């Protein structure tokens, strides 16, 4: 294929990847920003979102879109409740100690994964796309649903941004992020904010998963990759910086598509991983994050 169309395709692919990644990483970033903890089980919430989406769509009959819309609502809701429960039962008791939280969420990762294996099984199962049309370019065809994913993700991120900046809930979150002690003094229920943020973080991952599941399949080990990529994005974007996260997701998503045009893909992955390590070593606040005081 000629270089031009090739690049177009790589960019389209990159944009789809970036759209889902941004949503998922946003969840991780929000949790890190407000609660100062790293949720290693984030990828499993993503997986859970996909698995529940499969369940919902297979129970709802009729047009695939019906099941998909139901999944859009039900899946994040269940995942959010599960996350809030985990926050209550485990993280709060650890007093959100960063290292203890990592250990506990590793444990959570195994528990959720195994739960999925024993109930949902080991197969990768597809979910029908809510809309079925293909865009035929002169050089190649492209899934119309994928283009919709980009739009849907953008809308959802906009919604998150609006909630954070224009609502009382968002204000409480930002106040808690800024200084939990002072927030408490202003009668902000910090405990509930934490539980809420943790749930919302997981729900964003679940939303990303529902969007992806008509493209990829639900599988009990699918959480691994989004976790690593989200890590990368959140770090490059600056820990806790939401704008940085979205920006980094676009950069990583797009470059992942384009780098592999030039390098052996495995080599490209090695380079990308090393890049993240070096960014953290030399700019601990990430590329777009504020420099630490």
């Amino acid at each position: 294929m000629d270089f031009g169309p090739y690049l177009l395709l790589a960019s389209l692919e990159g944009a789809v990847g970036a759209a889902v990644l941004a949503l998922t990483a946003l969840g991780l970033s929000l949790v890190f920003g407000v609660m100062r903890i790293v949720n290693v089980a984030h990828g499993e919430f993503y997986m859970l979102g996909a698995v529940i989406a499969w369940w919902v769509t297979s129970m709802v009959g009729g047009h695939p879109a019906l099941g998909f819309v139901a999944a859009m609502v039900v899946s994040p809701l269940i995942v959010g409740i599960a996350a809030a429960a985990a926050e209550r039962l485990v993280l709060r008791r650890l007093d959100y100690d960063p290292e203890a939280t990592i250990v506990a969420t590793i444990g959570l990762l195994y528990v959720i994964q195994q739960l999925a294996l024993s109930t949902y099984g080991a197969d990768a199962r597809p979910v029908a796309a809510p809309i079925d049309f293909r865009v035929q370019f002169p050089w190649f065809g492209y899934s119309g649903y994928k283009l919709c994913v980009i739009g849907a993700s953008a809308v959802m991120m906009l919604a998150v941004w609006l909630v954070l900046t224009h609502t009382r809930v968002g204000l409480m979150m930002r106040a808690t992020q800024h200084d939990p002690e002072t927030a408490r003094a202003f009668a902000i229920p910090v405990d509930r904010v934490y539980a809420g943020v943790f749930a919302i973080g997981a729900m964003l991952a679940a939303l990303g998963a529902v969007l992806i599941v008509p493209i990829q399949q639900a599988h009990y080990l699918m959480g691994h990759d989004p976790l690593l990529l989200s890590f990368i994005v959140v770090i490059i974007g600056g820990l806790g910086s939401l704008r940085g996260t979205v920006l980094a997701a676009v950069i990583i998503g797009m470059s992942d598509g384009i780098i592999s045009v030039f390098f052996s893909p495995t080599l490209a992955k090695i380079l990308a991983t090393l890049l993240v390590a070096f960014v953290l070593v030399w700019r601990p606040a990430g590329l777009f994050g504020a420099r630490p005081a």
Partner: protein
Amino acid sequence: MSSTTAPQAQKVRSAITRRTALKGLAGGAALAAAPGFVPYIQAQSSAPLKLGFQVHRTGIGAAYGRWYDRVTTAAAALINEEGGINGRMIEIVTEDDGTDPKRGAEVVEKLASQHGCDLAFGTLFSHVVMGSSPRAGELKLPYFVVSEGHHVASGKLNRYTLQPGITDVKSQVRAMAPWVSQNLGKKVTMIFPDYAFGHDHRDFFSEAIAAQGGEVIEKIAIPPTESSFTRYFPRIPRDTEVIYHVMVGPGVLTFVKELGEFYGSGARPQIFGFIDSLEAVDIATPGLEFLEGTYFWEGMPRYAPADAPEYETFYRERVGVDANGASVSDSKDISTYAHMFGCWETLHVIKAGMEAAGYQGPDDRVKLIEAVEAMTTMPAGRAHPQGDKVFNGKTHQVFGHQYISQVADAKLSVVHTASIEDGMYPDETDYTAQPF
């Protein structure tokens, strides 16, 4: 620890004469037909024979493991119904290896030392085979793998490791080359996962197609952690006549769907894939319509042919699979039909080998291996529903027919059956020269 060594050495010697005698009996069928042929009678035990089954119940191999498990259970039930082996029932002792080579080695130890199994069998994923096989060799435990890896025939493993139930990847791939080059095209682009299994395909097929006057013009290796594939497709050269794809793991369906989207309704090269890319996946899944008219390698045809022989139907029935390759209890639960017969046939080879060796207990393990090594041809039948086979005792590897099927009306139908000879290649090792 190895207190059995000395007495074993003597039995080896007495077994050699037996083996010479067996050779005259021309193979598995005769052996199976003569269960009473035991030159000397050992103390008969009525306790069941314990066959250790190393299965992938968790980890990346779990989807395959489930069907290996079902087929093994069905085969064992059949063997027991028919009177067991040497008059003894068989008991399958199952241990999950987590599709992990470390746990695999531990499981082999556990089966041998704790459960006191007579042998171990059933491993699929190559890395688990590689991790476990040295331990089996050290424990002197016969280890029958069902992996289709080339590791056994390459000589990298040991005398205790055999693969008599399924053809290895080198043979499968070579058997495809003549038909592909004659019917689909000579300029091939390969898409494969960037690790050992994919590299085997790459190397063996490149060699085989070159021998047919064809050529691999592009090799696209996809990292094993990849979950979206479209961006690799532009690397397929325009003058490609055949795309050869083989993917494994949970991302396979995405891969095939995206390949379809990429070509869409436009002109496309011929597409030939290994069914590994769609094992346990329904061909009628939405998004796979474009596969209509493309070709697949199948280890054993998933959709029952109209003229299926009695033994094929019998096997299908016993393992609980319908004519479309799905579970009889759930039509959405597609089997790993192209591979799982290996467990069935392996158990029957074990049965034939044990009967030929007059196997009574762990002291006869060497005799069992020698008996299997002595096998040559295995005729198609209830014990070998996939078709007749030739076993190479030197390389411990079996060779069988391979099938090429075309997708038509969202079903696979066989268009070519490769001969066993198409998949033959020169021996790379001689395990029989190794001491026990």
